[in-house]
């Protein structure tokens, strides 16, 4: 398959994986945790490399998942110690990210990661990094990794759908009827971490954050049903990936940057034009309401 198609497919997979899981982060008011985890996985990747001395994707996935979960736990711990949530998030992620950057600088000769790569990813190189598995034609590594994570996420989400839903909406009731709220929380955090790291390598930290939040936020303004929100969010993720790619080739600029930008543009459009919860929609509803209430 052509070069272009692979980039679009991989970016779309990022859009779906992050978009769907991001909905839960938005509904649980954990959006900033997405930001935090997407920064701290850098440390996980660097540590995995320094310990295993290889660029093998599996080690990085494990390293990032561990550091991601650790981030969530440390934030929870500081929060529990009475530090307000935004501050705990801010302290933890900047610290881990700083250490990640320092390690990269110190071991610059041996680490093939550079910080720009971590931020912006190297999606343009995705089609050159092919592997063959069994009888399948050569496929990009990033594609295989993202597809497996997506499938894993979907299975977990289907298994724990109602638990994810009730712990997001009403954790107190969930706990009272015996649903392990903390387990579900860390399950979600684990999913966020592996999704982040699987996406991270190809698209960089910034697009991961954008894809985690922007599609979900757009979808939230268009529907009143959780299942619809998840599907719409995946759709917006794909749309941002495709439109971002073409904008990037058109203006000859960063691919992941354009995708992040387009996810924002799509959000802005929804924010203004959504029929029920958009700016214009609300205005029209007000008008209708007024004319109805003045009618005899």
């Amino acid at each position, binding site marked *: 398959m052509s070069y272009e198609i692979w980039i679009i497919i991989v970016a779309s997979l990022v859009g779906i994986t992050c978009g769907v899981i991001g909905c839960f982060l938005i509904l649980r008011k954990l959006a900033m945790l997405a930001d935090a985890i997407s920064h701290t996985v850098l440390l996980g990747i660097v540590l995995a490399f320094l310990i295993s001395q290889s660029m093998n994707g599996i080690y990085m996935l494990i390293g990032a998942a561990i550091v991601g979960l650790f981030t969530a736990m440390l934030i929870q711990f500081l929060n529990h110690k009475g530090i307000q949530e935004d501050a705990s998030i801010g302290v933890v992620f900047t610290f881990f990210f700083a250490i990640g950057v320092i390690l990269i600088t110190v071991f610059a000769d041996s680490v093939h990661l550079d910080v720009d790569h971590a931020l912006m990813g190297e999606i343009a190189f995705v089609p050159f990094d092919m592997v063959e598995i069994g009888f399948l034609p050569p496929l990009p590594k990033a594609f295989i990794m993202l597809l497996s994570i997506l499938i894993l996420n979907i299975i977990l989400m289907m298994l724990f759908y109602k638990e994810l839903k009730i712990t997001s909406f009403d954790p107190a009731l969930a706990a009272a009827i015996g649903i392990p709220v903390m387990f579900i929380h860390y399950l979600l955090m684990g999913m966020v971490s592996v999704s982040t790291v699987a996406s991270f390598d190809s698209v960089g930290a910034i697009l991961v954050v954008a894809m985690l939040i922007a599609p979900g936020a757009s979808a939230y303004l268009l529907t*009143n049903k*959780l299942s619809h929100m998840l599907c719409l969010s995946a759709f917006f993720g794909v749309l941002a990936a495709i439109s971002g790619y073409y904008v990037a080739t058109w203006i000859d600029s960063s691919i992941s940057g354009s995708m992040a930008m387009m996810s924002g543009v799509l959000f802005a459009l929804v924010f203004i034009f959504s029929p029920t919860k958009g700016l214009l929609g609300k205005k029209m509803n007000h008008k209708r309401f007024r004319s109805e209430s003045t009618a005899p």
Partner: protein
Amino acid sequence: MTNPIEIRNLTVAYDKTAVLKDVQFSIPKGSLTGIVGPNGAGKSTLIKAILGLIPKVSGEIKIYGKPYKAKDRLVGYVPQRGSVDWDFPTSALDVVLMGRYGHIGWFKRPGKEDTILAKESLKKVGMDSYANRQISQLSGGQQQRVFLARALVQDAQVYFMDEPFVGVDAATEKAIIQLLTDLKDQGKTVIVVHHDLQTVEEYFDHCILLNKEVIASGVTEEVFTVEQLHQTYGGKLAFLDKGKVMVEQKR
């Protein structure tokens, strides 16, 4: 026969300051009990501690003679309406269905039977025509009814409700109290956190006066006396003509 609820020497603390001290009471089966006390008296904390939502420092909590376990399905819970985000993308029916989640078990979805039960209890609270309405489009009273329907569908023996009358219209308040009385008549035990002193005698047959410790508990006529209310509220009581009491609430 054991009482549905027995609490002994319960102490709960936040950051080393005791919120509940040595709380002790029991509630008989088939009663409608109001927990009454000033702001910050630990009323919600008491319910949460009983349900194991916050850890206790010491003491014994028994529900039908056994420590509380969610899987016994003996308890239904109605949290404060303000404790959840009503912008959540879900419908009234869906919220009621959540009450069945404890019964459904892992890896299964709510089935037809659960939906029928959920619809029935929406009907009981007079909300059947709003089943598919998004929850943010309901009024405060309607939201509270949905919460109540969700508790009914839990099919429990003991119900805990945290301030169900806050921000609801008079019609809803009447409907809720009627439902609670029905539950009581079916032999269920209902415990309500309440702060409107004027309606205590009218609504509840049992009453617990709480201000960090239990001032008095038992049958309303015996407990709900001016003297004991004074003890509960300190000097913050003012008296009305008809022998009724009200609290100067600082909001």
